[in-house]
């Protein structure tokens, strides 16, 4: 290699390094703080996001002097962002995407325990008892988004077929096993078809009746009495019974034989029975225009409230923020949680273009809304403070729906006794990684009923015990005992 080549190489490398380091933040104009807010992209359309964020910024600029630059990012991008130390102000964090417990214990989020009480007392009061799920070692690192805090798992049935044609009755609540006669009736009429919609991730929410410490391998059942303990999933009889039932249905031909390799069944609208996770009164599943028939839901589980379910959506603030910026973040979240009209902008879009208000105060999406901005409410802050959506004009939704839902949580909710407990895997992470890999060898066939749990579970058990699952369980239970003592 000669000199000129060396020089070119050096110039290139320095150029690359310099562009990497030379980022600087543009100065704020007129005391308006612009926040970079990264939320999870569920894959729904948000083509008009730019325009809608502009509209929201107009309002928030006037009210609190804060604007946001809202980005929808994929799971991989968020993970990479957290790992590379990229700067953001607010980020979507939860029990299922961008793991809150792990990141909070790594110190990635701002400790808002005192700040939220001092600066935004209204926000603090509105969250109430649900702060518990955000506690890691007694400190709070994110604001839980008030939404369906408990998991209610339901079947969604074609009521035109079952009620009108077959004369069956779809009850408001049923047991998991009660769906069998419905499946059987359909199968008898259509022997070539499969009544229960099922893809490789299984029936949505079928495992929500357990709190998962290491999802879904090590669980804490709800009904344990005072002595809360973590157990491996195979020790939970109820779950095993569900797997056996699913296997029975699979063999009876109620489930597609290739279910364990099917990515998604969304495109096939013909299934008369589907699973779902939502809350009482939710209308999103019942729009006949979406399905071509009327849908009735029947809840079989819940509402179960646990750390996992309450952490469904949270907003974390970057640890690198200074106090001023963190306060701006909290103020913005507070505005989202208190000002309904403002909240509806990020939730549904621009009034008159993407949605309109109905007479009873609920929201009805216009065609531009369903085509160009169909995000889920939990992606953009408080769900409870947003107006309720009506999907069928003939059947307007109850605008005060959330009051009922939260009353139900207070009265009939089944609460986990370990909601404030966060497990710190520490040096056990390599075992957990191995367990996850082992579990994924069986997961799809187990939850679709393809494999017989009585032959597969002993195999999983043997492999997991070899990989050291007992060490992890002992570690969890030790931490759990310590946590229980601190609570008293």
């Amino acid at each position, binding site marked *: 290699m*000669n000199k000129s080549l060396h020089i070119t190489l050096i110039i290139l490398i320095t150029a690359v390094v310099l562009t990497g380091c030379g980022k600087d933040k543009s100065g704020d104009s007129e005391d308006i703080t612009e926040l970079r807010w990264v939320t999870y992209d569920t894959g729904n359309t948000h083509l008009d996001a730019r325009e809608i964020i502009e509209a929201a910024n107009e309002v928030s600029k006037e009210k609190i002097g804060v604007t946001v630059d809202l980005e929808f990012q994929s799971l991989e991008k968020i993970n990479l962002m957290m790992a590379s130390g990229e700067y953001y102000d607010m980020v979507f964090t939860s029990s299922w995407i961008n793991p809150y417990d792990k990141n909070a214990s790594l110190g990635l989020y701002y400790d808002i325990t005192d700040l939220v009480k001092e600066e935004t007392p209204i926000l603090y009061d509105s969250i109430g008892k649900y702060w518990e799920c955000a506690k890691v070692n007694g400190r709070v690192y994110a604001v839980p988004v008030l939404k369906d805090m408990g998991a209610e798992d339901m079947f969604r049935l074609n009521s035109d077929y079952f009620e009108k044609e077959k004369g069956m009755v779809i009850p408001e609540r049923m047991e998991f096993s009660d769906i069998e006669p419905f499946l059987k009736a359909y199968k008898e009429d259509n022997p070539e078809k499969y009544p229960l919609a099922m893809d490789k991730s299984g029936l949505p929410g079928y495992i929500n009746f357990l709190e998962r410490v290491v999802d879904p391998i090590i669980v804490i059942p709800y009904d344990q009495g005072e002595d809360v303990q973590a157990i491996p999933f195979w020790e939970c009889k109820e779950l095993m019974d569900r797997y056996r039932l699913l296997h029975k249905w699979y063999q009876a031909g109620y489930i597609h034989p290739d279910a364990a390799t099917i990515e998604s069944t969304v495109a096939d609208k013909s299934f008369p029975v589907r699973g779902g996770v939502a809350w009482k009164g939710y209308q999103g599943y019942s729009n006949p225009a979406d399905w071509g028939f009327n849908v009735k839901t029947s809840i079989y589980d819940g509402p179960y409230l646990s750390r996992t379910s309450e952490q469904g959506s949270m907003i974390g603030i970057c640890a690198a923020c200074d106090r001023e910026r963190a306060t701006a973040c909290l103020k913005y979240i507070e505005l989202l949680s208190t000002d309904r009209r403002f909240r509806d902008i990020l939730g549904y879009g621009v009034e008159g273009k993407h949605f309109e208000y109905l007479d009873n105060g609920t929201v009805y999406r216009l065609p531009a809304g369903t085509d160009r901005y169909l995000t889920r409410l939990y992606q953009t802050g408080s769900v409870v403070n947003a107006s309720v959506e009506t999907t069928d004009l003939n059947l307007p939704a109850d605008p005060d729906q959330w009051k009922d839902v939260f009353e139900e949580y207070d009265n009939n909710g089944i609460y986990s006794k370990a909601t404030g407990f966060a497990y710190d895997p520490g040096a056990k992470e390599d075992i957990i990684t191995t367990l996850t890999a082992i579990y994924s060898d069986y997961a799809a066939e187990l939850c679709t009923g393809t494999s017989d749990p009585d032959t597969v579970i002993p195999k999983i058990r043997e492999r997991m015990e070899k990989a050291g699952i007992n060490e992890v369980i002992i570690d969890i239970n030790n931490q759990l005992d310590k946590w229980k003592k601190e609570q008293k």
Partner: protein
Amino acid sequence: MKREVTKRVKITAKGSKNRKETRELTLMSLPAIIWYGLFCYLPLFGIFFAFKHFTPRPGESLFKNLFINSPWAGLSNFSFLLRSSDMPGIIFNTLFYNIIFLAAGIVIPVFLAIFLVELHGKHLSGLVQMVTVLPYFLSYVIVGYCVYGFLATDEGQINHLLKMFGSNAIQWYQSPGYWRFILIITEIWKSTGYSMVIFLCAITAIDRTLYESAMLDGARFMERVRHITIPLLRPTISTIFILRIGSILSSDFGLFYQVPLDSNSLQSVTQTLDVYVYKALMQQANFSYSAAASFLQSVVGCILLVGANLIIKRIDEDSSLG
């Protein structure tokens, strides 16, 4: 042969004196050098991930996070690879398939190329080339669904045929026995055409007069292949062999994950190291672990590559690299 080698050495020695000529040549290779610098040498610092307990802090640069904020972890990042009791099976699968692909990926294309050269009809030869190369440009996701079209339990073509002849349908995605063959056939179908083109070029570069004189001496087709084509193809074959052996612990993720649709029952025959690493780390986003896994693959690959090159050098110096 020996004389040729010394001649070549002389030419390069002479060339290095002539600066002007080399400058032009270096300039021509500049794009490749830049590419290698940016994508192969610059990211080398990522090796540190494998030996660090990576704990990033937001708002700070990646370099600071990696070198200053993260404590050293020794070899502990590698332990998750050893935790799994089915690691021997995974390594076996990786090596098993790669060795078969290595052998089949050379033997089959070489013979196809030899026969294709003998085809006199130009149009037919062009058609054969096009048809065999085409699958190479399909992504494995698409190939996976094509295979599914054949093997699906309910709607698959093969099960339709089986039912037509009165036998029972087979649940392909739950029957690991067949999959070693299915995967090998799929891989050969997809990659043969592309490697064939390389050998085809090498064969067309062989001096035709050699064949003519052999024919005059009465050599038949197989004799010409044995005494002219294969010996002269040897350097190309060994180059490709050396390059491929370097990636013997890596596997085409698409083939082993997308084509079997990640079916659970097939894990025992489809799980290779790459698939395992993906599945273990997909949910956790632990960069240190994934860096450790790929570092291990590269080290083993590097040792095998250098070793194979040394052995080839012993046997036939001309065919080795560097």
